[in-house]
């Protein structure tokens, strides 16, 4: 076979791979929608989205407490992890001496290599007892503990992306600001951060997407009980943790099984919306540059 033919064949192979990628994601969406939307035959949308009564024995499938739980842990985790991540990346990108940066950057990547079950295990054996004893609450399972662990889990995503964004801020801007008499702090706050903002926003949103989809670690520390949280220390449940706890023993095709699929579909749509948001933010960045 001559080289041209091999070239052509290879490029077609790549095309098939790319097409397959598209087909798979569409197939997942179709399957989830099909299996999930059947739920509405047995359960009204009002009940599913606005009732917190989850009692499959009595044919009550209200998923509100899972949706609220998911949103709540994601927001709290972002509130804790976001500022922490941005400050760390400011330090890594702008303040740290070269040798320290060379240690810190790989260290952040190491965080990404930790499997979520390890986070969950540490959460269960270290953080849960600590929260119980430090705040004098019964149990120690719940939103607060989960958010704490999720905050740490989303740090590497936030740090590595915003470090890149901060590193991309042109040196001339900084030097101009300093030359005009601004202090280093003023330069950071008024010049560097606003310039890198689209990248940092992308980092935060991707962190949120990671937090809302996290299953294993959350399942181990949240308590998995279908009730609306009364305080940040009360156990509740999230969409992914409830799915993983119940799906193994739930008959496929029953109203119960279908509503788990619907919960997965809701989760998928939230994640897709977050990704779309990221695309919108980075499109904005291109216009600026």
């Amino acid at each position, binding site marked *: 076979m001559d080289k041209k033919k091999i070239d052509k064949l290879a490029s077609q192979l790549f095309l098939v791979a790319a097409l397959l990628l598209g087909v798979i994601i569409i197939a997942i969406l179709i399957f989830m929608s099909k299996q999930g939307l059947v739920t509405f035959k047995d359960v009204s949308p009002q009940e599913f989205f606005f009732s917190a009564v989850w009692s499959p024995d009595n044919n009550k499938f209200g998923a509100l407490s899972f949706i609220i739980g998911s949103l709540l842990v994601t927001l709290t985790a972002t509130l804790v992890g976001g500022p922490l991540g941005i400050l760390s990346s400011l330090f890594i990108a702008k303040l740290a001496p070269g040798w320290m940066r060379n240690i810190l950057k790989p260290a952040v990547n190491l965080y990404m290599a930790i499997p979520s079950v390890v986070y969950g295990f540490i959460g269960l054996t270290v953080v849960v007892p600590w929260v119980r004893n430090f705040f004098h609450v019964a*149990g120690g399972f719940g939103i607060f503990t989960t958010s704490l662990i999720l905050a740490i889990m989303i740090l590497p995503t936030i740090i590595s992306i915003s470090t890149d964004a901060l590193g991309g801020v042109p040196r001339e801007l900084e030097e101009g600001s300093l030359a005009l008499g601004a202090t280093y702090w003023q330069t950071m706050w008024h010049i560097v951060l606003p310039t890198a903002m689209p990248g940092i926003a992308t980092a935060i949103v991707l962190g949120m997407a990671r937090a809302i989809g996290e299953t294993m670690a959350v399942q181990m520390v949240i308590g998995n009980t279908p009730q609306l949280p009364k305080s940040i220390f009360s156990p509740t449940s999230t969409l992914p943790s409830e799915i993983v706890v119940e799906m193994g023993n739930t008959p496929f095709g029953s109203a119960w099984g279908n509503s788990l699929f619907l919960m997965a579909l809701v989760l998928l749509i939230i994640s897709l919306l977050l990704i779309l948001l990221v695309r919108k933010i980075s499109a904005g960045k291109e216009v600026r540059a």
Partner: protein
Amino acid sequence: MTNLMKKTLGLALTMLVGMSLVAGCGSSTGKPAASKDAAKAPAKIEGKVTASGSTALLPLLKVGQEEFYKLHDKVTINISGGGSFTGQKQAASGAVNIGNSDVDLAADLKDKGLVGTDLVGIPFVFIVNSDVSVDSLTTAQYVDILTGKIKNWKDVGGKDEKITIIHRAKSSGSRATIAAKVLKGKEFTDDAIIQDSNGAVRSAIATTPGAIGYVDAAYVDKTVKPLKFEGVAYTIDAVTAGKYPVYTVGHMFTKGQPAGAVKAFIEYVTSKDFQDKNVEKQGFIPLTKLPKK
């Protein structure tokens, strides 16, 4: 034009190759099983037995499968988990030969012609964190705690400490058994912590002061404190004497009366020989030691 045609043809070919690769994976696993079925030897029990359902019964049935293979090497047995309700449903639909279940037949499957064979008794024990001073509770006290009416150990004779309920998800057969045998129609409170296995429940109770929950009797160990039920500690003798009611009977459901290899396997695991040797070791109660109905 011809160029375009060549391109599409090439593309179609590559896709075909890709597809046949995928298809190849599927058929290669199917073949050995088919050739096994084809090799026939007369007057011997042979065939395929498929079972799914209760994860609690799975370890015992796996032992049964190994032992059964030693006697009948022409039989292939596939046992998987999935939970009691899944087992019942798949047996009713014919997806498996045997649906293993540690709960009674679901209401909507009662008219599907399923026949249940008793396999073993499955005992449950209430356990608490070792800091709880209470040793025994009455049925009424268990009900009040599990429904959320009593929230402090001092109301049942213990010290002033909040009760934390740690137990299983709504899809769990264990939970269904406790609901049937202890709560008798009343609802569990949702103010509880849910773990998804016996082992996880035990370790969460072991580390949470004031915690209460239940596990299969085989899971009770030194890290937790077993509670008596109406003053009776769990032993097989107590169950036989009818004094300890917190147990359920594991069933094997078949569509109609079992026949052939399915019948042979069910008869084997319910035989006195197999039960005497393995059942107590696995933490279950042999059929012969269950109280007479």
